[in-house]
């Protein structure tokens, strides 16, 4: 088993079935704080700043049964040059695909700064034998994925088998270590409470997550502002007590520029500028990109835009 990374006081390993002194979350106060932050009024140059940053942080994603090499190639091109008419628009952070499509994404993004992320470990449910999950992870890493988005076993988590969840993360991390960044999806929409979100986040970080990620995008509820805030607070606690830096990825249901800006304000006022970089924060999305492009052009031209002027890929 991997050496355990440093954790805040009270979270020392080995993990007991029940984690002691986790800290708790008050749902109402958390939601109120998230609500206040969501009402920040971000205008003009500060808005353009946020929108460009959102593109740089974007994991442009397609996770459909109908995905094909052609679809992934087109998406990759879009990610490299989101707006062919405006060379000032940066590339996205990564293209996020299913394992089988990793080679096609890699091929199209070769020579660019755009990374390739693959989901793994029986995404989205995680309900497969451990060996299958590990084999899948090994496969995508060997295929050359720069980043692995794994899911935790929510069934194990909700039945209190925290050690099992932890062990799986550790095993996946062993495979990724030194080769690919590991994002651990805790699927907040299935965890039921913010206390569980906090607990799962700590578990993921303890297991070696480079990033913790809200959702698969396949559950009924995806990344909400309070859930993201709750996770940022965990990252902050870990950083303040140990200095360890953990990244954050929000995913699922983020379609509007306004939402992206709200998430970024949250990061800004919770973790500070240091986290306002693609190395530490990602936004997983598929249709968000064009809305951001439209908003940027609106800010630059002063005119409201028509979607037909932006390519659909």
């Amino acid at each position, binding site marked *: 088993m991997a050496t355990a990374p440093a954790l805040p006081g009270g979270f020392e390993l080995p993990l007991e079935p029940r984690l002691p002194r986790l*800290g*708790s979350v008050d749902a*109402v*106060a*958390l939601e109120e704080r998230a609500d206040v932050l969501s009402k920040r009024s971000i*205008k003009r140059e500060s808005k353009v700043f946020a929108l460009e940053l959102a593109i740089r942080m974007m994991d442009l994603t397609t996770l459909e049964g109908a995905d094909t090499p052609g679809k992934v190639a087109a998406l990759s091109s879009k990610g490299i040059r989101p707006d062919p008419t405006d060379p000032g628009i940066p590339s996205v952070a990564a293209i996020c695909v299913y394992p089988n499509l990793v080679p096609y994404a890699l091929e199209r993004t070769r020579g660019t700064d755009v990374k390739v992320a693959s989901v793994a470990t029986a995404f989205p449910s995680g309900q497969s034998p451990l060996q299958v999950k590990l084999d899948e992870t090994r496969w995508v890493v060997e295929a050359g994925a720069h980043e692995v988005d794994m899911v935790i076993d929510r069934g194990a988590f909700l039945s209190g088998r925290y050690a099992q969840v932890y062990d799986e993360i550790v095993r996946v991390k062993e495979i990724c270590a030194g080769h690919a960044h590991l994002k651990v999806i805790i699927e907040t929409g299935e965890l039921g409470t913010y206390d569980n979100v906090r607990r799962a986040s700590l578990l993921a970080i303890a297991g070696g997550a480079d990033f913790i990620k809200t959702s698969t995008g396949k559950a009924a509820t995806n990344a909400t502002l309070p859930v993201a805030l709750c996770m940022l*607070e965990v990252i902050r606690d870990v950083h303040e007590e140990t200095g360890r830096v953990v990244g954050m990825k929000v995913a699922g249901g983020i379609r509007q520029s306004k939402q992206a800006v709200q998430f970024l304000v949250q990061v800004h006022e919770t973790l500070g500028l240091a986290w*306002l*970089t693609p*190395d530490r924060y990602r936004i997983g999305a598929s249709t968000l990109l064009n809305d951001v492009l439209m908003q940027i052009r609106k800010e630059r031209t002063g005119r409201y835009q028509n979607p037909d002027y932006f390519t659909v890929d």
Partner: protein
Amino acid sequence: MTERKQDVARRADKAPLAAAWDYAPAPEARDIVRIQERYGLFIGGKFVEPLSGERYMTIDPAREEPLSEVAQANRADVNRAVKAARGAFEGAWSKLRPSERAKYLFRIARILQERSREFAVLESLNGGKPIRESRDVDVPLAAAHFFYYAGWADKLEYAFPNRKPRPIGVAGQIIPWNFPLLMLAWKIAPALAAGNTVVLKPAETTPLTALLFCDVVRQAELPPGVVNIVTGDGRTGAEIVSHPGVDKIAFTGSTEVGKAIQRTLAGTGKRLTLELGGKAANIIFDDAPLDQAVEGIINGIYFNQGHVCCAGSRLFVQESIYEATIAKLKRRMRTLRVGDPLDKNTDVGAINSKQQLEKITSLVQSGVDEGAELYQPPCKLPERGYWFVPTVFTNVAQSYRIAQEEIFGPVLSVLTVRTPDEAIEKANNTPYGLSAGVWTEKGSRILAMAQRLRAGVVWANTYNRFDPASPFGGYKESGFGREGGRHGLEAYVALDDA
């Protein structure tokens, strides 16, 4: 693989992209408000010239700019207002069916909602509070208060078992500058619902929303004299208190003035309710949801620049989490945005007046002199206007002035406790008893603390929440009587045997 390893390492070390993300100014447009150059007194349904002939300038404390000249009412003016109120009480208002009275109040509530942005902007202009608060707290709550009490007007007999409630008569109401419109609503709504008429004096420094409210009274077509607004300083208030034609006094303000009013009314049999000062304890136990508790601390003391009688100005932290709490608190303070009250992103606005700024400054100096450790986040304040950086004192002893006296500013004093009993003992060790906060995940401890804290409002795992249905008021020297809820009616009814 080696190349990729280097890549991974390089990416992890990459510096943040931005040096700063300064939010662009997002000022609320002020042209929605039309402020008159000068105002008279609102008596008998219309604005009249003050018999005193005196006026003074009311200003915008964030810019130190004059806004309007308002009247300084004297004894003759107050007398005129009381006569108008008496006339209205004995005339149209007391003869009105209660259900009709209710409808007037519903009208006022609706008009306040319709004109909410106008009131919010004016409140922030004249008082210095952030537009975010006047927009999201003060004005909606004021409207809600009228809406709540409107419904009581024709149901009073259900509020007081075995009694026949009747109005008292003319209520003299004196309100403070920290929540000008909201305090007006707290005073006028229950008074009118119970069938009284009122003479209300807004605070000297913040008369403008009360004067704008006169236009709501006009639009609602309230009978003349039911609501009378007289402006002026403490001298005007004293005239109201001592006027023989006033049947009831409701005062919100300092404990010192409250005592003076109680002395003045001694032996007169006039009804009195007082909502006075506070020095609330906000108690954080080691099992508290810490990030939310820190938000509660921030909201407890920096809400409305700390100009809040129930502000959580004494923070008691259990020693085992003291350092973590203070680190989180200071970090959070660094994200507070202090500045233009009209900017939608402002968290902390201007201090209400020069006088108040001087008081805060002198008490903070006393804290430094007595040996407490001061922390203020780096903060760029505007050049003009009255400002005070959000401040926290650690290493505070219970005996220091900053732990005893009401500062009424953005200044927090932190003390440590070891056990719940010690927290109770220290929290209650004050002549005040308005409010308290307690943060813990343990249900039985919440209830035990709530039971033993000698305070009229206890916020458990929250702070500074207000609602028209929720009674508010103090124990001990924080006053007597309640505002809000069914209990808030009691101040405005005489209870005859059924």
